[in-house]
């Protein structure tokens, strides 16, 4: 699978739910590539911006889309990676700010 086909597959699933892909295509495709790399490395598409343990059970919360996405997109307009964003974020109606990590630190091993 190429980063482009992964993006189009995910777009069909996620946009109807109100989660859009960052309009910065270069960044979005780089993240698609990282998701494919993680799939190869770990066997699942772990969040490219977080340290995976390599154990499925321990990484479940950060398998993309991660469980923190909903709150982050609600509060900041973007997920931690800036991969999934809200419509207003893509329309530059809200500031593109750093999204603080909300994953509990004890989960990082």
């Amino acid at each position, binding site marked *: 699978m190429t980063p482009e086909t992964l993006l189009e597959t995910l777009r069909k699933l996620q946009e109807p739910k109100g989660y859009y892909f960052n309009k910065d295509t270069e*960044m979005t495709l*780089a*993240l698609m590539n*990282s998701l494919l*790399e*993680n799939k190869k490395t770990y066997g699942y598409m772990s969040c*490219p*911006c*977080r*340290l*995976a343990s390599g154990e499925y059970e321990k990484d479940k919360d950060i398998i993309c889309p991660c469980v923190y996405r909903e709150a982050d997109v609600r509060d900041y307009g973007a997920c*931690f*990676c*800036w*991969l999934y964003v809200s419509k207003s974020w893509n329309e530059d109606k809200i500031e593109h700010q*750093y999204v*603080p*990590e909300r*994953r509990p*630190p004890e989960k*990082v*091993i």
Partner: protein
Amino acid sequence: MQNKVMLYALSTCIHCKNAKKYLEDNGVEYESLYVDKLEGDERKAVIEEIKKHNSACSFPTILLDGGERVIIGFKRDELKEALGI
């Protein structure tokens, strides 16, 4: 004298890539480590070191002057100010 810069990164992380590019584009010398490529005791030790400066252990974590100052995430303005770019 230029600050000593240490960048803890993940090989797959876009904010890490962007931070590295920003430093390179501005001619800032830095050291970096891909924590996802480490294993065993070395990995544990590096995670502990990062947590001392950034309890969330998120990436990138950028240490200036051996941790005198810590910049969490790729924050262009903060880096610009701290490094006098």
